[in-house]
């Protein structure tokens, strides 16, 4: 609980209508999209301006109160989970689009602006904001910046960091700094690049300069039905090897197709592995590439290959894909969403190994993945009502992450580390790597009050933390991997 005097200071920072302290209202903020972690905050503030954010952070800095910033709360790794008795800074009211510069292809927005609203604002001029996490109709730009969100189309267009030109940030000591600018290569360290994806541990973004992209002339989406995800995976490799860079390459397995069909009737073909290939660009180029992509699908034994014939059909195809996580509720009482990355070529062997691990654990795993960039989203299905099954499912999901690291990949491609994967980060990086990251954290937040006890495997204190000489990673000692 926060002392009354601190509550009073917060009230004077944001006004009475910007402060929540009642327990039932606080419960709204006790978790994000990862609902199995819940912590009640001491207070929630809803600032309307950078100055109010600054005033709140100054109160927190003065009394060393931990704070966690929050957008729409759709994160899937517990990044917006409150610190016990700490302050949640909800940016929901800072939702204005401040500037639109079409000639220079950027917009300036407040952090509470919803991802899809950026595109909606610039669509009349023929532009869009490229990063498209599945939650884009509700998630906010501030949250996207914290997580460096991706989406299906980042294969071609890149991630949030690719599209973030600059930021205004309230540092954990309450200072406001401008990082980057609408122009490139401002003299100095690329702190914008470091801040994006830092999961709220380096400060609070109060303004974001985003790049917008001209809508391509033509977009075509191809659906190809295969016997197995393996055949679909081979097709992905062949498409890439042919020198194409589609805007999206997605695979869904039979379980995922079944769930998506049940949820949104996307009219997917019934098959063991569905591949979606989206190509965009000038019409003459897309036509040539599409016929090449069709040929590659047929060569790899696709039973059915069709191109979505209208914008409505294409929208439905994507609706099914983006609803795939939530749709799991149709075929399983409970499920865990995972997010690992592997080199694309490891796809067949990793999928086989996941099958084997799932069978051994007596669980089902559905697979939905951004195949073009090797980003897997295994969905571990279980029933909480069956004693011990949740623990089994959690254990399996973490072992899948280890499998990704063992194959030269990563424990997260877009959901972030947050609360969920702190220990897994310690599997991926060795102590010197983590200690070096901590140097950045300590430069921004020496008091460790910005989203503390997240991302890193254990709480680290800035003063005592000195990176030591190199010690080999366990994988290196075991001869599995070289340092990279």
């Amino acid at each position: 609980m926060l002392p009354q005097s601190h509550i009073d200071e917060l009230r004077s920072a944001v006004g009475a209508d910007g402060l929540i302290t009642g327990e039932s209202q606080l419960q709204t903020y006790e978790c994000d999209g990862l609902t199995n972690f819940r912590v009640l905050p001491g207070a929630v503030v809803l600032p309307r301006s950078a100055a109010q954010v600054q005033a709140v952070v100054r109160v927190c800095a003065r009394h060393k109160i931990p704070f966690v910033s929050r957008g729409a709360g759709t994160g899937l790794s517990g990044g917006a989970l409150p610190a016990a008795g700490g302050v949640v800074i909800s940016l929901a009211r800072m939702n204005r689009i401040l500037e639109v510069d079409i000639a220079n292809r950027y917009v300036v927005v407040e952090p509470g602006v919803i991802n899809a609203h950026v595109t909606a604002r610039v669509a009349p001029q023929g532009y869009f904001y490229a990063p498209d996490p599945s939650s884009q109709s509700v998630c906010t730009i501030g949250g996207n910046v914290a997580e460096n969100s991706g989406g299906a189309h980042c294969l071609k267009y890149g991630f949030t960091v690719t599209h973030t030109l600059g930021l205004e940030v309230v540092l954990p000591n309450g200072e406001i700094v401008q990082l980057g600018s609408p122009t490139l290569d401002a003299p100095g360290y690329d702190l914008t690049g470091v801040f994006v994806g830092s999961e709220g541990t380096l400060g609070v973004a109060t303004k974001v300069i985003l790049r917008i992209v001209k809508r391509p002339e033509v977009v075509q989406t191809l659906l190809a039905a295969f016997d197995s995800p393996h055949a679909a995976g081979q097709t992905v490799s062949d498409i890439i090897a042919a020198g194409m860079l589609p805007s999206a390459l997605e695979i869904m397995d039979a379980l995922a197709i079944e769930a998506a069909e049940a949820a949104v009737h996307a009219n997917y073909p019934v098959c063991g592995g569905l591949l979606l290939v989206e190509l965009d660009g000038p019409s003459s180029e897309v036509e040539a590439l599409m016929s090449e992509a069709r040929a590659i699908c047929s060569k790899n034994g696709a039973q059915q290959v069709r191109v979505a014939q209208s914008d409505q059909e294409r929208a439905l195809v994507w609706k099914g894909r983006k609803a795939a996580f939530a749709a799991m509720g149709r075929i399983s009482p409970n499920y865990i969403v995972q997010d690992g990355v592997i080199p694309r070529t490891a796809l067949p062997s990793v999928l086989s190994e996941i099958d084997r691990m799932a069978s051994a654990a007596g669980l089902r795993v559905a697979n939905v993945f951004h195949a073009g960039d090797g980003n897997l989203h295994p969905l571990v299905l279980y029933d909480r009502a069956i004693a011990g099954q949740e623990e089994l499912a959690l254990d399996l999901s973490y072992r899948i992450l280890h499998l990704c690291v063992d194959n030269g990949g990563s424990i997260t491609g877009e959901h972030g580390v947050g609360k969920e994967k702190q220990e897994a980060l310690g599997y991926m990086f060795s102590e010197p790597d983590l200690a070096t990251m901590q140097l950045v954290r300590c430069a921004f937040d020496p008091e460790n009050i910005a989203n503390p006890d997240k991302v890193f495997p254990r709480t680290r204190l800035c003063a005592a933390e000195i990176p030591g000489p190199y010690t080999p990673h366990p994988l290196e000692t075991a001869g599995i991997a070289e340092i990279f």
Partner: protein
Amino acid sequence: MTSTTAITAQECAAQLANIAGEAHTEVAGETVSVAPLDAAQISQILRFADANAISVTPFGSGTKAGWGNPVAPGIRLSLNRRNSLREHPWQDMTCTVEAGCTWASMQAELAQHGQMVALDPLWPERATVGGIVATNDSGALRLKYGGLRDLIIGMTIVLPDGTIAKTGGKVVKNVAGYDLHKLMTGSFGTLGVITEVNFRLHPAETDARTWTATAPDALQFAEPLRILLDSQMTPSSIQLRAGKLQSALDVRIATRPEAFDEQAARLRKILGQIELSDSVNEVWQARQRLFDHEDRVILKASMLSSDICSVSSELQHLAAKQEFEFDLTAQATGLMTVSLNIPADAVPRLLDQLRSRLRTSGGSVIALRIPESIRAGLDVWGCDSNALALMREIKRRFDPNRTLNPGRFVGNI
């Protein structure tokens, strides 16, 4: 050796020879050059230097050694024995390359599988991966493929205390931990020594064509450029070239062979009255050629893309009025390189003029090459960021004894 150092160059060289071998250690005046074999030796050298207050300058081939503020002589840490492409899993379209590898030799190996790191830096035949990354160099391809921050997916670095750390990884999509490689990119060797870099790769542009349009005043290209950038065409590169009396606009498009005619027709329509002709690849060497005259001042200016034609035109008018010569290239990304033939005492005033012209829209001007006679008292970086204190704190955390390139970077970091 610097005045704060008790150790002589000879004593320093003897210590370094123990680490890297005599054959790879050399004394030249006050500077000791050493070429370590691997990250472990780099770690030892840095620990030795850090403990003895000797400054260290990481060194590739020295093509950009004059950029930034000068650094007092100390150890020149050469990466030239770390010069190979370590891994190229071409089906994954990634690679791991050692920092001392020249850009061209890396690209030649990647080209064997029809791939490339999609960046066209200066002096690719000589410049090394580490130096290009440390200075965040980029060329005209940045329009389509982004800069180094978009192409680097991981890195191995050695800190002044000897810590060997890796960041990122070998997969393109990865949000685990902080992206230290973004911090290292463009940090001018002030935070750590880059020993290896992991890149994402793109298919090489096997089918690409360039067109060039010419006009006297750069301002004549402002409207066509605006329309082109607002169109659904997807050029790899767009470059404005300008001198005192003439200007040119180069456009490079890579696409399927069957699509070229239609793309050229569109381009012609956009340029309207201005004649467009088929051009040659050599025009993309223009930025590098600006550096050829060694007596010329070189500036790197960053501005909004909508400003490149007007700023170029203003320079043309100023040059006509004040009777000086200049040449520039400006990418459609808003990055401009200017080569000026002006008297040394005219440089500060012109630099100020350009900076105040660009600052209102967030732009900046860095003086890459200036006459030694005016170096003292001139701020080559022109960094007016209110995050400078934070940058200094990052430097202090990474390099508390100011061992790496002390004073070279913004704000004398």
